Structures are given as C-alpha cells and as structure tokens.
C-alpha cells in the first residue's frame, strides 16, 4: 500500500509544502527541528488537516484532492495514527483502548479483545490490560498508544514520536516490533539510531518544507543543512559482539568497554576518531588503516568520509587535512578509544 502525496496545507499562519512518495511496505522517517511541520504533514496524511492544494493517494485511492472537492475523513482512510500525546481514552481500560480500532473495523467484542491482548503482549504490557490510562507511566502509555494504532492492522501506520519516552531496553524491543510490521510506515523521530535502523528513506523537514530526501546513509554522508548534520553526525555500525570484541561487517573488529553478546549497534561521534599517516602507538584500543572516500569542507571543519574497511565519518581541522596530505583515495590510519564507543543491542 503505497503513499503518493503532494501536500500544500496550512494550520493558522503556518504553511507546509511537501512531497512524499513511499512504496508499499516501506518505512519513511521524517526528521527535523521542532516546529518544522512534521506532525502537520502526518496529520494531513491521516486526514485530520485538509489540504489547500495538491493531492494525496493512499494505496491507489485518491483521498485528498481539494480541486476536485475530494476529502476522505480519517475513519475511511486505510491508516492508523499514533499521536505523540498518546491520547488514550481515559474512560476505557487499557485493553478496551487497544480493542477500539478492531471494534471500529467491525470485529465482534471477543475477537477484538483477543487481538488487543495479542498486541499488548507484543509491547510487553499484557498484565496491565485491566488498568485505566491514568494509572500508567509515560512509557507504558506510549506503548499502549502504539499497540492501539497497530491493533488496527492498517495498511499505513503513522507514528508520531512513538518511541520517544521509552527507556533504552524497551525501545530496542519496540523497534524490532516496528521493523516486523508489514504496513507502510511513516514515522516522526528525533533518534538517529531509529532512523538508520528502521527507515528505508529519510525526509528532512525544516520550516514547513522538505529540505532533503534520500536513504539514511545518503543523507548522513551528505547532510544539506546544519540541523541535519547535527542530528545525523553519528557513526553507526552493526556487528556481532562477543565480550568486549565486536566483529563488524567489513572485517574490522572493534574493542569496546562494555561486554555484550550477539548482534549489536556501535555508535560513536565523528569527533572521537583521530587520523594519522603512520600506524599510531596510542592508548586507543582501536586502530585501523582506512581509505579516504571523500573530503568535504564545512564552515569551520572538514568532514572526512572513510571507506573500506568500514564506512565512517571523521571531523578534522582544515590544517590537519593539509598536514596529513589527505585526498580522495589516499590511505590513512584511524584511532578510536574503546571508551568513546556506545554499544547497544541491535
């Protein structure tokens, strides 16, 4: 169930103009600073905010076309939305909240309840089924809200910061859950890891417009605006951990300070890496020889993209580039302290 949208919409004085194309089953992440219009865009897709111009096609169905007078209301769109405010119904129990969507879709009370229990189980809250929303913690309410949207089993799932208030461990579980849902997903996020792991395409919004589109890797390696660079300026590598050793794809092994086992994600700042021409003899646990894939000068620093054996970004000063004689295709040594690495379960 694909999404094609040409959006020109306004709420109050604020106007957004955006184009969105998402193939069926894909996951699109929308990132951007606060007030960029991300929620507005998602609410347009949901049908909560009318279009001024343009059109929205969800799963081949034209749901918005103001010029033709077409506006399909939210309840007749193939969508479910999880709002960042959760908006659980205070008068319904947790399980009745989650069963609400299936009931609206015409399921009888008992099968709807069963489906709600399944989804509560998937978000790890099966034992809270009888509680009222007011009795939940912020993280629990968020998972209930997510389960409530997912229980609709919609063709298109719209998620507005659905993982924002979860702790690290729960967040990993819920991320896996989201990765496994076969709906076309559009998610608003502030988390670079979420973006890189979940998203097939990334939309960067600023001041109501989309400033960059691409795969997360494309956008991360060439951020067009300072905000994007700030969000995505993080190296993220997948590997398999055995104790403090992490074997990365590409053959390199990194030493970390945190012992773990199994698939992990390793993140570190581009500022944590030092480059040198000769093999360094330092306290840094990790050194490797790398090929320079690209050199990109920015206002007060230079972004060096290393290619083989593992892709990563490094910030250096313009002087360092000259002193080290760095150029595209040249080789250099990289050093990275184990304590600069953050390791988390994949």
């Amino acid at each position: 169930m694909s999404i094609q949208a040409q959006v020109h919409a306004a709420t109050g004085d604020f106007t957004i103009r955006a184009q969105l194309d998402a193939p069926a089953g894909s996951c699109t992440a929308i990132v951007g600073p606060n007030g960029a219009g991300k929620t507005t865009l998602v609410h347009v897709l949901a049908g909560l905010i009318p279009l001024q111009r343009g059109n929205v096609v969800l799963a081949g169905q034209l749901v918005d076309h103001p010029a033709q007078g077409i506006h399909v209301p939210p309840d007749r769109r193939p969508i479910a939305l999880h709002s960042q405010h959760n908006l659980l119904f205070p008068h319904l129990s947790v399980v009745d909240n989650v069963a609400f969507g299936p009931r609206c879709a015409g399921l009888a009370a008992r099968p709807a309840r069963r489906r709600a229990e399944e989804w509560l189980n998937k978000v790890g809250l099966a034992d809270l089924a009888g509680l009222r929303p007011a009795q939940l913690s912020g993280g629990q309410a968020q998972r209930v809200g997510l389960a409530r949207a997912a229980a609709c089993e919609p063709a298109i799932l719209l998620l507005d910061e659905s993982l924002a208030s979860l702790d690290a461990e729960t967040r990993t579980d819920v991320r896996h859950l989201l990765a496994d849902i076969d709906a076309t997903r559009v998610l608003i996020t502030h988390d670079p890891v979420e973006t890189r792991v979940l998203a097939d395409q990334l939309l960067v919004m600023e001041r109501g417009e989309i400033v960059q589109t691409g795969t997360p890797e494309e956008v991360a390696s060439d951020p067009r605006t300072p905000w994007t660079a700030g969000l995505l300026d993080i190296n993220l590598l997948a590997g398999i951990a055995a104790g403090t050793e992490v074997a990365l794809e590409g053959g390199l092994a990194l030493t970390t300070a945190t012992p773990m086992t199994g698939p992990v994600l390793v993140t570190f700042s581009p500022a944590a890496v030092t480059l040198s021409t000769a093999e360094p003899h330092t306290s840094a646990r990790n050194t490797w020889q790398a090929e320079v894939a690209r050199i990109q000068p920015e206002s007060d620093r230079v972004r060096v993209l290393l290619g083989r054996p593992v892709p990563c970004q490094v910030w250096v000063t313009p002087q360092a580039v000259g002193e080290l004689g760095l150029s595209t295709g040249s080789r250099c040594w990289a050093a990275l302290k184990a304590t600069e690495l953050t390791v988390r379960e994949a």
Partner: protein
Amino acid sequence: MTKRPNTKGPNRRPPIAIVAMAIIAVAVLSLPLVGLLQRTPWSSLGTTLGETATLEALRVSVVVSLMAAAVSVVLGLPLAWVLARLSFRGRALVRAIVLLPMVLPPVVGGIALFFALGRKGLVGRALHDWLGIDTLIGTTAGAVIAAAFVSMPFFVITAEAGLRQLDPRLESAASTLGAGRWTVLRRITLPLLAPSLAAGATLSWARALGEFGATITFAGNHPGRTRTLPLAIAQANEAGQPEAAIAMSVLLIGVSLLILIGLRHRWIAPRTPQQQSSSESSPS
C-alpha cells in the same frame, strides 16, 4: 476522589476571620429553614401530605419538572455543542440570551411567554392557525414550556463547560482509529461528557421543580394541570392554611436536598479532565 496535594503551606491553622464569615453565611442560608422546620406540625404532616390536592400538585410537579428537564436536554445539548465548538459572529449575544432566564425575574419570563405564545401572541396565533392548537395557556404543556424556559440555561452552561473541558484531540484520535462520527459520539464524546450531562440535567430538573413565577404568569394556576407544588404552597398560604403550606414546603425541601446531596460537589464543580500521564515531548 484522590486527595489534593497540600497547598496550604506550613501554617495549617485556618484563618479565623474567614471561617467566622463562612459560618455567618451558612447561618443566613439555613436559618429560614430552621424557622420553617420549627413551625412544622410533624404529627399531622402525614395527613396533610396525603390529601388529594397535595398529591395532585405533587404529580403535576413531577410530570412538569421531568418533562422540562427532558426538553432542556434534547434542545440544550445541541445548543451547548454549538456554543462550545463553533465560533461565529454573535456567539456572545447568543450566550447572553441563553443565560437571560437565569437572571430575569421568572414573572418577566412568564409575561414574555404570554405575549409570544398566548392566543394573540406572535407564535401563539401561528400555532392556532396552522396546527390547530387552541392555546397553551392553562395546559400542562404550557407549564412545561414555562419550566423549561427557566431551567434550560442550567443544563446548557453545565454541558457547555463539560464540552469545553473535553479534549477534542481524543475525538480526532478515535477517528484515526477508524471511528465514524456516530461511533465517536457514542463511544467517546458522550461517555466522557456523562458526568456533566447528568449534573446539568439534574440541576435543570431541580430548577424546574422549584419554578413558580413563569408558570403562574403564563400557564396559570389550574389544579391537576398547571398547579405544581410551589403554586399549591402559595395558594394554601394565601388561603389561610399555613399548616398545609408548611407541610408541602417541607416536602419540597426534602426532595431538593436529596437531589443536591446526590449531585455532590464534584458534579456542580466538575474536576479538570484527567490528564494524560504521558511525558509529552515537545511538539514538532
């Protein structure tokens, strides 16, 4: 109800002056009742209340007040929704007109109704010519209209306050989960409004039960049709039967107190809507 956090600060002793004035206020409001109860002929109360005329007035009161409350709910709820949810030019004027019966002397309302709905009135003539309704004056229907006129504002302001406290995003959320308008109304809006609607309906019923001025001016004082308890009390008092007047007054006080105690504080001053206990991140 959960206890509120202590906001009094370290000094828990209530200020004497405020408490003293509060006691005076309670005295002003309750002394007339004490005077009435003290004069009540308790031994003959049962006999007086058992008289046919009293029972008839009680029956008319119950019928008229319940019908007036029903009219208030049926017409008042859409009005409350319009006032709470739509912004339009002249909304302030409409709200003032709606609240007017609360501040007008009911007798003024009765006179106004008479000139509007009476046989020669603007609407009364149309009713006669088109619907064949001879006159509302002197009928139970007329008494219901008079009672609804004074009691509907109580329902409208309570329901409007409830609607304003209801987070409209909950209704939007329901629609994004597949609920059509009717389902949203039935499963979200009305259940969340229920306490306000119950409070408003009960208040307007209580007001209709005590209605006197508009009823006697517009609908008249006809036993079995428009003579409600308040009218019967006034009639008895003027006819030199203070015992009967007192007995019926005690009955009316008893019924009203039961309603108000049933309402309790939280229905008259509804709590703020339950906050979503989410740690809300900043909007984007």
